[in-house]
């Protein structure tokens, strides 16, 4: 494949830098390991978890499924503000702050 990858055609939210991403994981109210899982399970689990959070609390989802970085923030909609962190080796974290 010489052209765009799946990563390039996925509309993810703004990215976090490595340092911020690492620090925020320590502060998260919940970290969900969604590696190996595909749609719609991550969306469903994110929506359920966000509903349980206090306002301003952070949910982090770890995923190796690129489309989740677009689909999960879309699924929670206005209930959370989303950012994403890309490890560079196929692992992603989706950060969701309860609004």
């Amino acid at each position, binding site marked *: 494949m010489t052209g765009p990858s*799946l990563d390039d055609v996925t509309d993810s939210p703004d990215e976090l830098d490595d340092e911020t991403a690492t620090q925020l994981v320590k502060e998260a109210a919940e970290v969900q390991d969604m590696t190996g899982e595909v*749609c719609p399970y991550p969306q469903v689990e994110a929506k359920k978890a966000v509903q349980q959070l206090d306002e301003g609390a952070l949910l982090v989802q770890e995923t190796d499924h690129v*489309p989740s970085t677009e689909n999960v923030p879309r699924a929670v909609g206005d209930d959370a503000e989303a950012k994403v962190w890309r490890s560079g080796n196929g692992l992603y974290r989706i950060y969701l702050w309860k609004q």
Partner: protein
Amino acid sequence: MTVEQIDPTDVDTEIADVIDIRDEDSFAEGHIPGAENVPLDNLEEVVDEREWNDEVVVACYVGQTSQQAARLIDAYADDVIVASMSGGYKKWDGPLRQSNK
């Protein structure tokens, strides 16, 4: 980046290539007659080389990941109309065909 959405009731398998990006097990359990199983991970490997029909419909579980897959195909396939089946198999009300893995 947006991609065309097609209602499941408007999918014409006589005209369009239906690309089912779910996993092999889900495909074997039941798929749109005429659909071809290209799991998402495989799609990245073959998207550049394979020949695409003039019309392609991408189907997944709930119609979300199919949007990214449709964009990927659209990025490689010239003069091809690529659409994502809205609602995915969750909304598919037509016949299903089973197959052996």
